């Protein structure tokens, strides 16, 4: 979710410094809005409530807004204190604003927000007519696999949410643990799946699905049962990096392209989580940012990721954990209405994904705790040069890049300028003395050797 990532914090602080803060309310906006008839710049324009893009759930015919509200981390009364209660007032404002602007899908779970999310979400939603919103929650029985515990969890969701039916109910986090055996223990052996199917028949669950992370065999297994179970929807992780490169990020993950295709061929709609890859796709390096801004100067970097996630037609809704009004408004603008990515844009985003994966910035803050290296390396100097080259677009994704020659020269000449030859990455012997000193937990020897391998590729002009 957006709000889980560290970068989100920096974004938040950025906003604070700008004086926008998290507390920009509808009222406040209306108050300082320019007189009618005056057009505002697109980047701050009021999202048009009539323009939200909707998708339809095939089995129930629900008309679901493409922007779904992830309720994983609502704003807290004291943002610095992780144990402070949720700011119900602010949650209400956000929910009101979202519903006013066409959002009707709210995704929560019994375990979210220290177990407080369902209650807070329910409190905000009950102020609206029940038919105005769809509520999604999950069976998060990841610890205790007993029927009793699962039943209690199921029942409790109704209480917390203060509803008498649940629109979208998910088997939470399929693919965790040992994969298929864990799925069987959680939902089959204890009869919970049969029970939930009965509940769907009874109308207390309108749509039944599951959310998937991890072991692909569990995903395939549940889909193989589709003829009996008839899944109404499935929640998957999808963004332009995970589309084709999921395993490069995390070896347990599977490409979203595959997941989406498997679902689509069974006519099962996909609910999308992690459209921003934990917030990381909201801010990219200078080179990638500039390329996007050249095409759409007034739109946020995050908007590209949302447009990507919303483009596949069988995507039902894209979840975003929006703690701040700023994010909510930005996302509303993106989807009111959705402008699907063009072929060229998809090619560009795929290229962006490759660059992003190949050259993630090294999180070095130049604190110098690792120094002095006993073998004389200038560790922060090497990392700073590398990061500078990434941000200036001087790290090439491929030796076939149009810009390769120039970037190569800038990287190599700049390297010798920033770090004397005797102190460069090639000198790292991997003794590991530095590792424990790094407060950022950077795997210093591995990173140095990775940079060294890149330098060698440049020097030897090997194709990559």
């Amino acid at each position, binding site marked *: 979710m957006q709000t889980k990532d560290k970068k989100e914090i920096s974004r938040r602080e950025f906003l604070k410094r700008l004086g926008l803060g998290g507390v920009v309310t509808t009222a406040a906006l209306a108050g300082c809005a320019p007189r009618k008839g005056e057009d505002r710049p697109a980047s701050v324009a009021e999202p048009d409530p009539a323009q939200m893009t909707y998708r339809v759930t095939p089995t129930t015919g629900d008309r679901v807004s493409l922007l779904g509200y992830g309720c994983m981390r609502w704003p807290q009364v004291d943002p610095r204190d992780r144990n402070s209660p949720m700011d119900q007032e602010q949650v209400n404002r956000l929910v009101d604003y979202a519903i006013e602007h066409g959002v009707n899908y709210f995704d929560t779970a019994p375990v979210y927000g220290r177990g407080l999310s369902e209650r807070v979400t329910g409190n905000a939603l009950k102020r609206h007519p029940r038919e105005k919103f769809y509520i999604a929650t999950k069976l998060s029985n990841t610890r205790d696999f007993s029927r009793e515990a699962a039943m209690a969890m199921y029942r409790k969701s109704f209480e917390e949410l203060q509803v008498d039916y649940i629109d979208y109910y998910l088997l939470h986090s399929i693919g965790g643990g040992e994969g298929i055996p864990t799925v069987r223990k959680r939902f089959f052996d204890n009869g919970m799946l049969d029970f939930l199917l009965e509940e769907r028949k009874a109308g207390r669950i309108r749509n039944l699905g599951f959310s998937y992370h991890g072991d692909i065999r569990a995903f395939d297994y549940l889909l193989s049962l589709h003829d009996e179970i008839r899944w109404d929807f499935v929640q998957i992780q999808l963004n332009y990096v995970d589309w084709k490169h999921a395993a490069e990020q995390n070896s347990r993950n599977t490409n979203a392209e595959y997941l989406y295709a498997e679902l689509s061929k069974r006519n099962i709609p996909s609910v999308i989580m992690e459209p921003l890859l934990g917030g990381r796709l909201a801010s990219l390096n200078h080179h990638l940012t500039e390329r996007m801004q050249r095409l759409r100067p007034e739109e946020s970097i995050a908007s590209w990721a949302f447009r990507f996630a919303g483009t596949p037609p069988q995507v039902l809704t894209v979840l975003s954990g929006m703690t701040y009004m700023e994010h909510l408004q930005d996302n509303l603008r993106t989807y009111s209405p959705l402008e699907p990515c063009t072929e060229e844009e998809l090619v560009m985003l795929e290229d962006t994904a490759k660059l992003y994966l190949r050259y993630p910035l090294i999180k070095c803050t130049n604190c*110098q705790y690792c*120094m*002095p*290296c*006993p*073998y*004389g390396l*200038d560790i922060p100097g090497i990392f700073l040069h590398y990061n500078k080259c990434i941000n200036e677009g001087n790290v090439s994704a491929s030796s076939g890049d149009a810009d390769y020659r120039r970037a190569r*020269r*800038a990287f*190599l*000449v*700049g390297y*010798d*300028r920033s770090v004397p030859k*005797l*102190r460069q990455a*090639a*000198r*790292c*012997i*991997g*003794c*590991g003395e530095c590792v424990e000193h790094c407060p950022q937990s950077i795997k210093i020897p591995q990173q140095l*050797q990775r940079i060294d391998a890149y330098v060698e590729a440049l*020097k*030897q*002009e090997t194709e990559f």
Partner: protein
Amino acid sequence: MNIYRKCRTAVALLFFAALLLLFLDFSGVAHRFLGWLAAVQLLPAILAVNVGVVVALVLLTLIFGRLYCSVICPLGVMQDGFARLGLRSKKNRYAYSKPKTVLRVGVFVLFVVLLVGGVGSLFTLLAPYSAFGRIVTNLLQPIWMGVNNLLAAVAAHFDSYAFYAVEVWWRGAASLATALVTLVVVGWLAWRGGRTWCNTICPVGTLLGFISRFALLRPVIDTTKCNGCGRCARNCKSACIDPKHHTIDMSRCVVCFDCLDSCKQGAISYRRPKVQSAEVAEPVSEKRGGMSRRAFLAVTATLAATTAAEAKRQKVDGGLATILDKKAPHRQQPIVPAGALSLRHLTQHCTACQLCISACPNGVLRPAQGVMRLLQPEMGYERGYCRPECTRCADVCPTNAIQPITREEKSSTRIGRAVWVRENCLPATEGVQCDNCARHCPTGAIRMVEQAEGGRKIPAVDRMKCIGCGACEHLCPARPFSAIYVEGLDEHEQI
């Protein structure tokens, strides 16, 4: 100035400037366009058995005389420069002298014997093109690099990557001394007496002198016009015009065309001689032009001084561990570049022009110190190693002492083998994890193996895979002596 002389001067300056650049350049760019200039030098062409070039040069000399010495030979053109400086102080300063045939032939025979007999590399001391190369490589290239480094510092200030700094280092005392002595001796002889060196010592001059006796075109004295003033002889830098007998010694004439201008009577012309007898001349003196190069040298010297100061300033380090300089291990067998085939082949074919040394971008090649291979290149890995992508020395060698080689061939040619020195090795002695040699070996010849007595893994070399590039030696953290070093091979081998 007559048209011949104008053309000769212009072409000679072009050749000279291009060859100068060829030796100064360290980026490899100049060689791509100017490499042929080294290949058309007579001695390298002979050693490379470059029949086409040799035939062409012989024909050139048979038709025009020793134009080679006036235009193509950089040492010859350099001497003209010195002679011109000398002329400024004194006009009409030369005089006819009898050919020192015994000395000439004697030196020539000695040279041939040294060359053919393969007795060391002493013959290279006399080779004109190589002498020039050594002067530029040892004396001027460091200045050139210094200026470059200054520009690089300026470029860095403006975030430009147009220039990059290079390491300036003196490649060896013997080489430096030889270059300096050659410069002083040749320069002084030229300043004092024009082409004395070319017409007494230089073996190439002697060889071409034999041929140019039969030259088709030559300066001819028209005795009907000559008033016997002797002006031509007093301005002939080759001292080959005998005004009394109206003859010109074509074995020594370098067809500079100066005499054509010096004769007030217009008695000397460049043509086919009609009659055998009549050959006279009057020399010429010249004072104009030639300033720009001197000015250039003055400027470069100033810049070099500034650069040295700059380099000192940049050497300052902050809180970093000190790094000792590497010392060269004592090698039983010197290492020579892939393409040289063997030390023997290199020694026999190399004229020690040091073009390879000036071109080596990795600080690997340097002049050998021993008498037998004096000034010829050999390798050492204290400053860098023979990188897999580089074939620069083989590309530039005009004599095929280092034969052309592709990257792939080079990477499969064994020029040496790595030798492990347990007492310097960190994992073996200090129990520190290190696999830098194994990780950087381009052929995967080094493997980290368990020690029989336990402890950290130590490197083991697969001799059949090791090509002797020196990556292991150069990148070994042990200092000043590496824990793994390369021993040369007598004969290179393919793996």
